């Protein structure tokens, strides 16, 4: 039996389900998804303060999550300026430091990445990573993710020139820390 490993991103089950999925993340310092929609008062201050317009408020299609902030990293990733965590009045985004940020974990899909497929030499993800040499390192010029250091900011996803299936890239962010289970 062969099973699909990841649920599709952003597929809406019911109006109460978390919208977070592959490459669709919460801003830095977010509390777990179980708490997020309850704690966030949709004041939009994180959206306003974000200088890169990375943070977008979700709309009514996301049910009770309407108005909550999210980052579609393939469109505009988080540049980790950490301004949003400073302004959140409810502690939904906790005041954390850049390196403590865990929006998700990048994963290089070795079956899509041209470097891993041995077809070319691409290092874009490594080059654009704000924690170059910490979160993405090179193993014989092939990029790999250092789980302990990856903030999940998605700059690598945004930069990745290789398109995979269904809007994915050769490197994608999996929001594995977004739930209580994921954090445990």
């Amino acid at each position, binding site marked *: 039996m*062969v099973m*699909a*490993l*990841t*649920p599709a991103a952003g*597929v809406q*089950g019911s109006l109460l*389900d*978390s919208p*977070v*999925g592959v490459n669709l993340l919460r801003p830095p310092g977010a509390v777990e*998804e179980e708490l997020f929609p309850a704690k966030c008062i949709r004041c939009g201050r994180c959206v306003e303060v974000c*200088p*890169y317009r990375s943070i977008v408020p979700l709309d009514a299609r996301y049910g009770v999550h309407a108005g909550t902030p999210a980052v579609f990293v393939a469109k505009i990733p988080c*540049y*980790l*300026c950490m301004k949003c965590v400073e302004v959140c009045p409810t502690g939904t985004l906790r005041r954390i430091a850049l390196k403590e940020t865990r929006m*998700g*974990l990048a*994963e290089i899909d*070795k*079956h*899509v990445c*041209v470097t*891993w497929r*041995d*077809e*070319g*030499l*691409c*290092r*874009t993800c*490594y*080059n*654009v990573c*704000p924690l*170059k*040499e910490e979160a993405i390192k*090179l193993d*014989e*010029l092939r990029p790999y993710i250092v789980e302990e250091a990856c903030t999940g900011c998605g700059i690598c996803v*945004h*930069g990745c*020139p*290789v*398109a*995979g*299936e*269904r809007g*994915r890239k050769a490197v*994608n962010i999996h*929001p*594995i*820390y*977004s*739930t209580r*289970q*994921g*954090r*445990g």
Partner: protein
Amino acid sequence: MGLSRREFIKRTAALTAASCAGVSLTLPQAEEAQAFDADEWVRGSCRLCGVGCRVELGVKNGRPVALRGVPDSKTNFGYLCMKGMLFYKLMGHPDRLTKPLYRKSKKDKFKEISWDEALDIAAREFAKAVKTHGSDSVAYYGSGQALTEETYLFQKVMRGGLRTNNVEGNPRLCMASAVGGYLTSFGADEPIGSYADIEQATCFFLIGSNMAEAHPVLFRRVMRRKLDNKDAVKVINADPRISPTSRVADLHLQFEPGTDLALLNAMAYVIIEEGLYDEKFIGQYTTFRMGKKEEVSFEEYRSFLRDYTPERAAAICKGNITPDKIRTAARWFAKSNATMSMWTMGINQRKRGVWANNLIHNLHIITGQLMKPGADSFSLTGQPNACGGVREGGGLCHILPGHRLVKKDKLRHQVEDLWGIPRGRIPAKPGYHTMAMFTAVNQGKIKAIWINCTSPAQSLPNADLYRKGMAREDLFMVVTDIFPTKTTELANLVLPTAFHFEKTGVYGCTERRSQLTWKAVDPPGEAKPEVWIVREWALRLAKELDDPVIAKCVAPFVGKEEQYELPEAIWNEYTQKLTKGRDNDLRGATYRVLRQRPDGVQWPAPTEEWALKGGTYKKFVRGMDPLADEHAKDEKPYQFYGPAHPDKKLWIWLRPHKGPEEMPDAEFPFYLSTGRVIDQWHTASMTGRIPELMRANPYAYVEVNPRDAKRLGISPGDMILVESRRGRNLLPAKVYEGPVEGMVFVYWYDQHEDRLINRVTKDAFDPGSKEPEFKICACRIKRVSGPKVLKPYLASITT
């Protein structure tokens, strides 16, 4: 819905196991994204950097659909970088220039005209300039990206037809110092060895080169060599900036910009003082020189070096340099079985670029790290055909095809005879070199200029100054290119040309390797190959000036079909006539042979028989280089027959340390240096139009050392004003442990006026090679605001 951590680990476990076993998992993402089924794969070389990767263009229904590498190729082993993999997207790009565009005044808008009108205008304007202001009022400024056939034909028409040596090209900005270095040290241009030395070297000395980004595929070979032989192979990287290249280095020498000459002399000092030199090699093959005619002794060289003890040099170099590091580097260099040096713009774009080249060659000559497999002093070029077209094909003001100097009467007359034009037709005086040419434009001395396949409005240092000249109303400027650039913005006549794989011709890469790219797809609209444009223009010029000699220059090519026959005829004339008896003898590399040999031919290749074996891997070695056998005067294994050294020896130069033209001071306290990022190339007129590449690097930024950033209150993303005595830029900051403290670094591809860094750089140049010192000038930086949302920018044309 997120993936739980456990699921994630399981997934990783499965994928790792699958990749170990070579099993393709049927995971959603693992499905093959692209199954290209091209009708035909056409062979050629990559359009972008100087490495010369072999590529194959997939064509389906007459349209390009993919590019791929071929594993058995000699240069790249099948690897391509993203630029190389994606440049096929430029062939049908909507921004392509497809019709000749003209405007009388630079204030007007362009309007589309026919080729007939365009060529008439170009001929009339050039003829008018020649008639009223003399031959030297016209100029050609070409490119290391033009095909050899194009450069050759342009310079033939300019020199033989219009009687001017005002023939230049952007390689002056990029490797003129390397040419000067090779000629003065070895007596012959171009490296002695080949890429193949990489797999034999046991020590790499990489200086002034961010090879990992500028020559990624070649760097892969260096890295492989290092990682496969971790202990046996040493890598020394010398650069004021920590770059991805430094990653594989065992030793990173981070010095202050402009102190490289002291470092190199200090390494020589250690080698001499510790007796690590090759006495026999020095005795047999070398002489020591203070000047061209001034020979000195070994003892004098030794005492000259006493000014450069590691202690003194470390004090000059600063950064992380210690006397011990210099000693270690020198010992590794001298003691390894085979040492290969590689460098590029960090060395060449210096006020004393030729000297810096000489000093690297010195290290190789005194240690004998030169002729054996794996040992070489190897300059890397930035453009695909700077070596082939411009250096060999006569694309600079002082050289004629086949490495001939303009000022040597005998060589000049040879060329005139071979072309069948009257002696004295080519002026004896070299023309304007690049910086002098654009200064002459500023002064109004040049009335008509033809700029082919390059964008000096962006790539010249101190660009604002020279753009003023290019904007003059009394200058008629023709630009041939495939896309609008910062330079087409200043042109009167813009002519659309065919792109790589849309025309046929030869590129000669860094290792003397000529590779043929065959036309595979049609150019868009009315775009034409340059060779056709020059031929037609020359015929009209002949009429305008009533000069049959101009017609004679293109007579052998008249009537030839322009896609295949015309370039072949030009190539044949160039190789069979002009390279005969020269050190870059290419007579064996006919189109027939080049089509047969997938990886092209390395010169010297005097016969087809030799060329079919691939040509010459290492010059000057008897048994390996047919010319070494031919020129041999004695039984020595190495024969340095280069045309510039009458004594047939290698010259060891005594070159003192000299700093940059402009040093930081109280007003402008920072060094500014510029360079390249892996995904963008040169002025980004091509790579900027590939969405995948532009997304990764939409705009340039300024790299600031974290300690400087802290001192100045600069956070990542803040907008920074970078200002010099010449101009200013406004760039976002990247705080990064890259540049040495007190230095900032900016990528130069960005076309936006706020981020066009050559508005800030300095136009001082090397008095020997005339190559500008792009890499070092003084600037100041100031935080202006927090992060701003910036948009990528590419020049366009309004009609």
